[in-house]
């Protein structure tokens, strides 16, 4: 289908054009779903409200249920509001051996949140996470897109304090 012939969807233009750019590199429309959800989630501030999911479904001409099925399968897609910053603390084995659970406790304690809660000022949400592929830096956590390794509880607390 020619790009110009595509009906308007609920997706913002920049997301639509990012998707359009990828289209020629994949043989099916469905294959654009994960990239489209990444773009949309970025646009909607780190999570996917219903409106975003429906817009992606419309853009790729997929049933909404298909898109929901995918969103719920993957740990990096969120259907609930998240903090401005997303903190993922690894507690898998290599990190646990070096104190990963203490880091999780320190960060959640400092922000006054439990698993999946957003801190009162909307600043942070914290989740316990599986191995992030950086076990040589254990214990480590991921803040938004950045890795922070060789943490102590104090350093971890300081890192989240300094977020804006």
């Amino acid at each position, binding site marked *: 289908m020619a790009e110009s012939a595509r009906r308007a969807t609920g997706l913002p233009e920049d997301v639509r054009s990012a998707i359009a750019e990828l289209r020629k*590199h994949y*043989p*099916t429309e*469905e*294959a*654009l*779903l*994960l*990239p489209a*959800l*990444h773009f949309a989630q970025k646009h909607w501030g780190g999570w996917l409200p219903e409106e975003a999911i429906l817009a992606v479904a419309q853009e*790729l001409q997929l049933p909404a249920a*298909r898109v929901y*099925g*995918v969103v719920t*399968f*993957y*740990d*990096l*897609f969120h259907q609930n509001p998240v903090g401005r910053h997303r903190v*993922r603390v690894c*507690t*898998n*084995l*290599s990190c*646990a*051996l*070096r104190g990963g*659970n*203490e880091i999780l406790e320190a960060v959640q304690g400092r922000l006054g949140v439990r698993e999946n809660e957003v801190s009162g000022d909307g600043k942070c949400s914290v989740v316990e996470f*599986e*191995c*992030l*592929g*950086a*076990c*040589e*830096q*254990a214990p480590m956590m*991921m803040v938004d*897109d*950045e*890795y922070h390794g060789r943490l102590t509880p104090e350093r971890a607390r300081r890192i989240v304090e300094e977020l804006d």
Partner: protein
Amino acid sequence: MSYEPVLLRRSAGAAPGAPPVGIGAYRDDGGYEGLAKALTMAPAEIIEEVKASGLRGRGGAGFPAGVKWSFIPKESDKPKYLVCNADESEPGTFKDRLLIETDPHQLLEGCAICCYAVGAPVCYIYIRGEYVRQAEILESAIREAYQAGVLGESVLGKGFKLDMRVHRGAGAYICGEETGMLESLEGRRGQPRVKPPFPAIIGAFGAPTVINNVETLCNVPHIIQRGADWFAGIGTDERNTGPKLYCISGHVEKPGVYEFPIGASLDTLLEAAGGMLAGRALKAFIPGGASAALLPADKSHLPMDFDNLAKAGSMLGSAAVVVMDETTCLVRSVYRLAKFFAHESCGQCTPCREGTNWSQLVLGRIEKGHGRPGDAELLVRMTANMSGTALCALADACVGPVRSLAQNFRPEIEEHINSGRCPLPYRRVFEETA
């Protein structure tokens, strides 16, 4: 004998956080000469060379790469694909991240040679969603390669057309399993497929597809450039050849990625990694990632290659070596792995969905002091029902650590049950909700 790194040759001395080797420096060091040479060879010749090298997959299963490539039908009415597995989610594993961060062109060159050998005009590098910076590094290396005419309409001006894309996952261990990955690439939940048909016949988008791990593909340019005999001369024997990256983590002084000829022992790795943390004694180790059976300290001399580890009841897997010292509670450690597998099971197969969950529950109750007499036998029986009864190898992955704990470290389980608590002087590290 000192060993000259192959895969890490361009990055071994680099400072942590240094920018990746760019295309200019890569070419100055002989990079892309393997690809240039490959383009003068017949595709079948390349496949024969890779077969002769003995290169086995570095993603976990150890399948011979050249043999896998030879399964791709010569004639196909659909375009063929290479999907590079950069999902790297096996706990303890971080070597592919290093390969991408330090020397991305080495991977692109390996991918390009594979594509030419099997006749695939498209390569997707499927990278785990958490590797945001690493995806950017690959994308910028791919841009460099297009600009330099290494990729695109005519690879190195030799008329072979190749499109390469980075495709980001979104946080799911099961998408590292090759058919889960294909489902995910096609825009679905990453639930593994029934095999056969194998991906070499019906893979991505219904077309013949090669799937190889990052490290596997990084070896390929060196094999083409220096020859199969050179490669086959490295390692323990003709079934275990070539250089190998070992990821060592846990209770060691200098955790990291170390390159050795395949078949290095834990003793050798420990020496390179500065020894045990704080000089404490070794208790047990996992040689090949979360899916591998735990081995006791007296196996530290064992050559860690595919066959020696299989003989010892464990596996090389992704060569993620997790070291646990005398202060470690093994019940708690394996509980944590079982919890991981329960979280990551895609839920299609009953033995896996139920077995991973029960493994977590039973180990959790033992660790919390509520274990029941017979729990060790229960774990052994449970894992017997999970083994070989599910669609993919995730169920067996959970069996690896759980069964080895129940069989080889039973006194530690009994001690927990008999004393009604974890006997190790660990700080509160066990979440109450478990």
